[in-house]
């Protein structure tokens, strides 16, 4: 890239140190600039909360263990409530944990976030099923699968089950078929798929 750049009409707020643009035109390029500046300011705030010398983001690994511990604790708590049958409370706790996992500093490993969030969404799906909130449970299970496709048979099964509950048998059959492709011969998925097929046949479709 050559040694030139476009000078942008930027302005620094002396007290909050936030960067803003002084251009008032509402073209698409200036709206891109505004969103970019918003991201920049958010990133700056997370940088300020750092404890490393010089406020430089550390390398992705090792991860600050505090947040991981808090998330694990929240999940254990949610699991305990779930086992007792307090599904609403479990949903609340899982939601907390999910927010916390998604609130990790952005330079921490995304793989870790995926892993955590996949488990949490799968658990929340189960709790939502307990509350008979099938649409929410189906969406949660789908999110979980999206985050972790392989080795996540429970989430696959849960979405399939929710679709059955909502009467979307065709969709459920497709979904479970996909699940079998990814997960191999998982007994529970095979069983549910057989049920769905039988039900479809009974309805003459």
């Amino acid at each position, binding site marked *: *890239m050559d040694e030139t*750049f*476009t*000078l*942008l009409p*930027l302005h*620094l707020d*002396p007290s909050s*140190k936030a*960067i803003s643009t002084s251009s008032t035109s509402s073209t698409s390029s200036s709206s891109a*600039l505004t969103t*970019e*500046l918003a*991201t*920049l300011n958010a*990133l*700056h705030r997370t*940088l*300020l909360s750092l404890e490393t010398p*010089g*406020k*430089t*983001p550390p*390398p*992705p690994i090792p991860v600050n263990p505090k947040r991981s511990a808090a998330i694990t604790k929240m999940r254990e708590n949610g*699991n305990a409530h779930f*086992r007792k*049958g307090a599904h609403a409370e479990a949903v609340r706790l899982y939601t907390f944990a999910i927010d916390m996992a*998604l609130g*990790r500093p*952005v*330079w*921490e*490993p*995304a*793989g870790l*976030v*995926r892993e955590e969030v996949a488990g949490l969404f799968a*658990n929340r799906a*189960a709790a939502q*099923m*307990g509350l*008979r909130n*099938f*649409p*929410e449970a*189906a*969406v949660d299970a*789908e*999110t979980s699968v*999206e*985050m972790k496709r392989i080795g996540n048979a*429970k989430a696959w099964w*849960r979405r399939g*089950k929710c679709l*059955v*509950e*909502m*009467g979307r048998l065709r969709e459920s059959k497709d979904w479970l078929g996909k699940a079998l492709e990814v997960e191999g011969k998982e007994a*529970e998925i095979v069983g549910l798929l057989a049920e769905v097929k039988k039900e479809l046949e009974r309805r003459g479709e």
Partner: protein
Amino acid sequence: MVDWVSLAIPFAYLGILVGSLATFSYLYRQRKANKAASLAPWFGPHLQRNIYLTLLHLEPESTGEKKGPAVPETVLKAALLRRATEDVQRVIAVRNAKPALTTLLQRGSVGDDLWQRFLRAEKEIEEELRDVIQEANAFTPGWGATIFQSANEIHNNQTVRKRIEEIQSQAATERQWWDKKRENTQAQFMKELESEKPSTPKAKPTESPASGSVTANPSAPEAPAAAAAAAPQTGNTAGSEEDAVLVESGGPTIGADSAAGGGAKAGKKKKGKK
């Protein structure tokens, strides 16, 4: 004795030849350079880079006699990190495009211009990366080694969060659809029940307002209850045929029954969880 006149002819020939070749080469190169310069860049303007460099060159604003503060280093670091993130996206784009573009070029499906643009973009991005690493090391020694790791994770995190948001945003519409569907099936169920019992017309006027309230307030446990209440009435009028109809129309009811089993199963499965 050398014959200068006859010797001048080959020299003149050589001179003209070399001269014309040189002129051609010069013109050809110039035209090519012009063409290359007029090629559109592969990527759009690098917004993050512009922001970073603007901030770097931002003069402290002098308002009155008091001088405004200079841009703090943390802001510059954040801007550099944003720039690195955008670079990571560009590097990924270049790497993804390269094999496909090479194949297309070999087959002659794309022109040379495109390939030139691509090569230039590749070179530009290399220089850009080097520049960012230098800048990072200037802030904190050793940061240059990790800034792109961080930027890569930032990029991945952004994609993950966007995807989650996308999927989770479906929840509201799914819920609306489900509520509507449940209402519909319940209304239909009630209607079928009523049309199935012409032999007991007396029950009709008293029954219908109640069923109306049930459909208006769709909550799952009521459906089986309503079915149970209706079952004795219909059961005595006709035999197996009625049952078949009940089962047929009772899609959601059956679902609800098996849902209880499903819930229990989910509970059991849960214990094996990490």
